[in-house]
């Protein structure tokens, strides 16, 4: 390798720096000044704590004494729990519950929000009113909606039980039986359309009318128009909603905390609730941090898989396919 080649990058950088005038240098300094609140915040509230929690995950620590380095033992405990589930770790139980919840919730919520958006996309009078009504449950605090739904689901005097009695169907304490609790949370979680519906609505409104007209001329029915125009044109929005919804649902906490406390018999013991329990109830910060890191890996893998699959089913207008 010639001397020239070794020196070149350095000098080139120096030249570049030289070429920046005083004004540009000042602008650069100003940029970092303006961005400083976020940069500093990133270091002290995100990057630092992440590295710190990585360290904690290699220790056993109750916060009151000194942390003891145990290497990969916490991760080994979690791995072991996959094959021999234990009430002391609850890793595989919480993973199972959260996976079932996600698998049920993500598609159902998406269908519900898409149907809501398609209804709101109709050109009828009074749409702004319906939009407000559809969206309003989302702004209600979870604590308040948990109060009213617990009352509605109440086995003694709740609306649901009264209706079931009328129909002569068996009545149950839906939230407090291990067989029904998780499904009940899914159903309750479908109340209220979220930002997903707004994205779908925006997506629907951006589909050019002429596509439908052309299809009608070709004799396409309602279902065919939906299947071959609406769905492909919406696929970028579906993709975005899928990724966000998956990440959000896997991190579910509120509903289990507010409705069931994770019970009965850990039937709704969500993954994040488990992290919370190990951290703030048992003060086992080491294993709780290990669970948090495993969560990050799970979410990364899930996102990667969806990203990988997206080229097969997401249609971008103007995208060059092939190769």
């Amino acid at each position: 390798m010639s001397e020239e080649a070794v020196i070149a990058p350095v000098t080139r950088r120096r030249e570049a720096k030289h070429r920046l005038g005083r004004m540009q240098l000042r602008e650069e300094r100003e940029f970092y000044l303006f961005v400083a609140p976020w940069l500093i915040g990133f270091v002290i509230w995100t990057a630092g704590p992440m590295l710190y929690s990585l360290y904690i995950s290699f220790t056993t620590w109750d916060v009151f004494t000194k942390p003891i380095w145990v290497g990969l033992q916490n991760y080994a405990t979690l791995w072991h729990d996959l094959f021999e589930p234990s009430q002391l770790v609850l890793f595989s139980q919480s993973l199972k519950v959260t996976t079932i919840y996600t698998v049920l919730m993500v598609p159902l919520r998406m269908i519900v929000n898409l149907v809501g958006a398609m209804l709101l996309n109709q050109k009828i009078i009074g749409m702004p009113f319906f939009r407000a009504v559809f969206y309003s449950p989302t702004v209600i605090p979870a604590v308040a909606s948990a109060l009213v739904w617990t009352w509605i689901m109440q086995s003694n005097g709740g609306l649901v039980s009264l209706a079931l009695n009328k129909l002569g169907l068996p009545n149950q304490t839906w939230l407090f039986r291990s067989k029904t609790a998780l499904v009940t949370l899914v159903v309750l979680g479908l109340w209220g359309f979220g930002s997903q519906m707004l994205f779908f609505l925006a997506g629907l409104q951006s589909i050019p009318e002429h596509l439908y007209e052309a299809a009608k001329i070709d004799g396409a029915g309602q279902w065919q128009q939906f299947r071959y125009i609406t769905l492909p044109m919406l696929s970028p929005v579906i993709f975005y909603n899928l990724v966000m919804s998956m990440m959000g649902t896997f991190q579910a906490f509120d509903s289990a905390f507010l409705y069931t406390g994770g019970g009965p018999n850990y039937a709704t013991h969500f993954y994040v609730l488990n992290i919370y329990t190990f951290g703030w109830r048992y003060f086992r910060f080491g294993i709780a941090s290990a669970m948090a890191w495993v969560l990050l890996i799970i979410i990364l893998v899930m996102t990667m898989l969806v990203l990988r699959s997206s080229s097969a089913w997401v249609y971008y207008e103007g995208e060059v396919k092939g190769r």
Partner: protein
Amino acid sequence: MSTTTKAAWWGGIKSRTLLHKTLMYVLCILVGSFQILPLIWMLSGSLKTIHELFVDPPMWIPKSWQWGNYDMMWNSLRLEEGGPAMPRYLFNTVYLTVIVLVGVLLSNTLVGFGFARLRARGKNVVFLVLLITMMLPSQMTWLSVYIIMSRLPYPPLFYRISEAAKPILQAVTGIQFSIENMPNNWIDTYLPLTVPAFFAGAGTVFLLRQFFLTVPIELDEAARIDGASTFRIYRSIFLPQAKPVLASVTILTFIGHWKEFFGPLLYLNTSDKFPIALGVQYFRGFADYNTQWHLLMAAGTVLSIPPFVIFLLFQRYFVQGMALTGIKG
């Protein structure tokens, strides 16, 4: 070919669209009822006697409206030092939200402006990192941030100011504030809930950056020629231009903090310091109240009305902000 015969079978295009529209109305009303009836049920429950709540068939409109339920709910839960708890919780929420809002508006506009308008080496990398942090699950940092907060010393100046402000606040609001000892660290204080707001959040930065990019560059060029400093451009051109977006951010922040119970649950131990959402959850936990459904419904209604009204009044800003940031509802 089949379309014409079909249309004829339906009885012509006109009646067909009429049928379609009627069907859509029926569906909208059905779906809308499912959304709104639980809220009306809560309101109606809050105005009934406890006996009326258990009547079969259910009664939507109470015989005589029990406004006294609200009085009971508002005043019966007491603070540890005496005095009603709910007004204090309301005060706590307002206090927290105001401080957080100042932090959010100040820090996010600065950072958003920087990303939208200033050129610098390494900017793309910094921006990429910002985007990545939007995807990180917050649980990653709960435990370690909690530990950090428990190690940070409480600034004596803050303590002196807050103790000095208490008699004044008590005189103005009529709420009792107890004298406290100087906290050892940030746990069980408001600092963990407010200080991070001053360090900008990726979602809001992104939203503001997107907006600032749409401001015509001629405006700042003209200002520069007139000798304005960068900060002056930010303050006198960009901030006034951004009023609608700042309104969205304010509304989303307000509603977010009104709902918030998780952060306070982690950091606050003394029940006097709870904000209202956590306060209602705490109220629910007492054996004296957890079967008093009329009082619980009153608490739920009080908790729901402010965000509901704000949403209805400022729907446009709300939806805009929601759509731009993609914040989950």
